[in-house]
């Protein structure tokens, strides 16, 4: 069973990180794509991730106290709208990975985020077919719209239980 006070604390830490996540994501999209980007609804805490997108990029990292999973989902049909110059899907996926990489770099480098979760290193992006999520997790979820394309974003941070299995 989840520890209630621990769960409450995690929820609070994630809630406090909402602006960090949203700002990092928006700046990454606008910087890489060069399109204005906006958030159609508030980023919010949820007990499940958004519906699995056909293309989901994931970045996982951890330190001694936390496991973090950042996910970015997009429909395959929208990839071309983002990257009309690229003919190959490989290049489009590579660019999505680069956006996820920039979001993670900006988020993990923010002073306010580091003060809550400590220092974590950015790791390489991957495109899993599905994503195993930890039990009893809380997630920061949100969506962005850029160039009429909707992307879903998720951030799961889970405190490590000392001496227990700690997969993110």
């Amino acid at each position: 069973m989840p520890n209630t006070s621990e769960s409450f604390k995690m929820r609070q830490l994630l809630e406090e990180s909402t602006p960090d996540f949203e700002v990092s994501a928006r700046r990454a999209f606008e910087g890489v794509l060069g399109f204005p980007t906006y958030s159609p609804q508030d980023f919010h805490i949820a007990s499940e991730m958004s519906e699995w997108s056909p293309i989901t990029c994931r970045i996982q990292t951890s330190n001694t106290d936390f496991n973090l999973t950042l996910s970015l989902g997009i429909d395959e049909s929208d990839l071309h709208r983002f990257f009309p110059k690229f003919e190959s899907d490989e290049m489009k996926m590579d660019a999505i990975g680069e956006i996820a990489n920039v979001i993670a770099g900006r988020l993990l480098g923010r002073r306010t985020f580091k003060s809550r979760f400590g220092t974590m290193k950015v790791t390489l992006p991957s495109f899993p077919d599905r994503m195993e999520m930890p039990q009893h997790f809380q997630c920061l979820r949100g969506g962005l719209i850029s160039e009429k394309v909707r992307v879903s974003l998720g951030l799961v941070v889970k405190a490590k239980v000392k001496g227990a299995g700690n997969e993110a």
Partner: protein
Amino acid sequence: MKRKVIIIDDSKFLQNILQEFFQDRMGYEVVAVGTNGVDAVQLYRQHLPDLMTLDITMPVKDGVAALEELMPEFPEAKVLLVSAVSGDSILECLRLGARGYIEKPLRFEDEEFRKEFIDLVESMFLPVPKD
């Protein structure tokens, strides 16, 4: 004579952006492109470029490990970090001898960013004042 540059980044997307900018906007010759720290060291030895751009988070061997191997052998190497990460890894790379750092994303469509990037690269070729 054109200056020679090597681009090291695991993202093909970024490789293309940098390659295009160095060739078309700055008149550099891109002599090689690599995707990890092992490539960085091998290609540097092979081409002895005027400049190398280096990502930090890469598979096989990251940018920090590449600099640890490269800089003792080529202390005059001009390495420009191009990375999404910030903080301790950047400081470590600068301590190891990287000459400059530019944060991703590369917003080359932004005139101010272009100017900043070019100024940074050019500043790496200025003579270092002696103490």
